[in-house]
């Protein structure tokens, strides 16, 4: 589904990703862990196409398309969802208005019929329920006045509505209390755990992985994946710390 080959990227002319390779197949959940400054968020933004994140080498194939050639909205229409570590507040624009337009823009890009107002609201209500988010909150301006936990749950509601093939979730667990962590974890499983979908979780901690069990865990350090393993690698990291494991990987 996603094949990243020797990806190199710079931010403000500073090299951050230095030859990162990773293959994600349908049905798989991957977790990328790593110390601060390793390039985890840069990977997410680069795959999402954020302006300012410049690809200087390598390639990314997403379902047979050259992902790096696509504009951010085309990447979304192709089935990519980027969950933000810090969801952006947009005063005056309501979630329902923007999400309906976004969902229909994606459908149009894929040559599908748009959702009617009624169909959209039904879908939104169902996904909000799944994430235990009050539907009334989706009538409010995007993320404005939302708590950290509400923002992250709203990200998952958006993911549910947009129904992507691949979700890249950047620190979805940060800023969440224990209950919200469980709700988000269950939401990710309900929405994305399917034979034709895949997830890339970017996280610092093992705790989200208790709820969303990864098939593969990778350690990102210095802009490269230095070690890969199964779910037990996350536990080893939690126990021994990044430094020990990174050194072991470098050796």
């Amino acid at each position, binding site marked *: 589904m996603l094949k990243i080959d020797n990806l190199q990227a710079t931010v403000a002319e500073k090299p951050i990703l230095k030859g990162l390779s990773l293959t994600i197949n349908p049905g798989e959940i991957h977790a990328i862990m790593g110390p601060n400054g390793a390039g985890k968020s840069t990977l997410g933004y680069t795959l999402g196409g954020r302006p300012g994140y410049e690809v200087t080498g390598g390639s990314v194939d997403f379902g047979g398309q050259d992902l790096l050639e696509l*504009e*951010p*909205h085309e*990447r979304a229409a192709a089935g990519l969802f980027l969950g933000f570590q810090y969801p*952006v507040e*947009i005063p*005056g*624009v309501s979630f329902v208005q923007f999400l309906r337009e976004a969902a229909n823009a994606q459908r149009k890009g894929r040559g599908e019929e748009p959702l009617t107002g009624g169909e959209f609201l039904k879908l939104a209500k169902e996904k909000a329920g799944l994430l235990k988010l009050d539907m009334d909150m989706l009538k409010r301006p995007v993320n404005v006045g939302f708590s950290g936990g509400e923002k992250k749950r709203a990200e998952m509601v958006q993911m549910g509505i947009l129904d992507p093939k691949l979700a890249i979730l950047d620190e979805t667990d940060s800023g969440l209390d224990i209950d919200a962590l469980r709700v988000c974890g269950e939401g990710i499983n309900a929405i994305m755990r399917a034979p034709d979908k895949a997830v890339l979780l970017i996280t610092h901690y093992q705790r989200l992985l208790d709820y969303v069990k990864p098939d593969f865990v990778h350690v990102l350090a210095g802009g490269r994946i230095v070690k890969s393993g199964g779910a037990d690698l996350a536990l080893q990291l939690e126990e021994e710390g990044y430094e020990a494991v990174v050194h072991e990987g470098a050796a």
Partner: protein
Amino acid sequence: MTVQLTLPTRRDENFRYSDIDALRTVWPIERERIVVAEGREDARQIVETGEGATARHLVIRLEKGARMDLRVLSAGPAYGRIAIDVTLAEGAGFTLGAAQLATGAETLEIVTEVTHDGKNATSAQIVRTVLAGHSTGTYLGRIAVARGADGTDAEQSVRAMLLERTATANARPELEIYADDVKAAHGCAVGELDAQGLFYLMSRGLPPADAKRLMLQAFIAEAFAGAPGEEALSEAALARLEQIL
């Protein structure tokens, strides 16, 4: 007050950013006088969506306890000037919500002079300007509070959004206060669309023009919130926005 017959120059503060050549074609500007009688309410709209140069000058007097809700949409003229002089007697209330949308080499301006002449009168002005291309958008707003007009509450909120760096926004709020007990809040800001917000919307599948349009719709909406003709004004503004983007 008589009609000013001599064409102003840019040395005249109230015409400092005007397109004088275009102004010449509509000069002199006839003053439109409106009086709202004691205790009465009036609501009006000025919608300028034609392409030709236009200049209006409203002179409004609000008697004791009278109210006026005025909404302005200036979106289309090559040169569009709307001057509004308002005098408020005791307890009167004035609301102005205005949006200016320009592109190309268009020059749009709103020039207000709000005089609080009696006690406890309130005025609120919200002006939102969106500028593309090489257009110019100006707001000159003077608030004068007369001696003894205590309990005045005068508010100005002026924001301009530049879609391109080649556009120009001018904003000059002015306060002249001779009373003691006065609340006068004013804010002016010129900016660009939030790049993070745009990327967020695009990452959800909105094409760039739609993402911008959505954010600008929200920006303009503040000028028309609560207006009797809110929906029609918003639709007319949207039509122009789609042309500009």
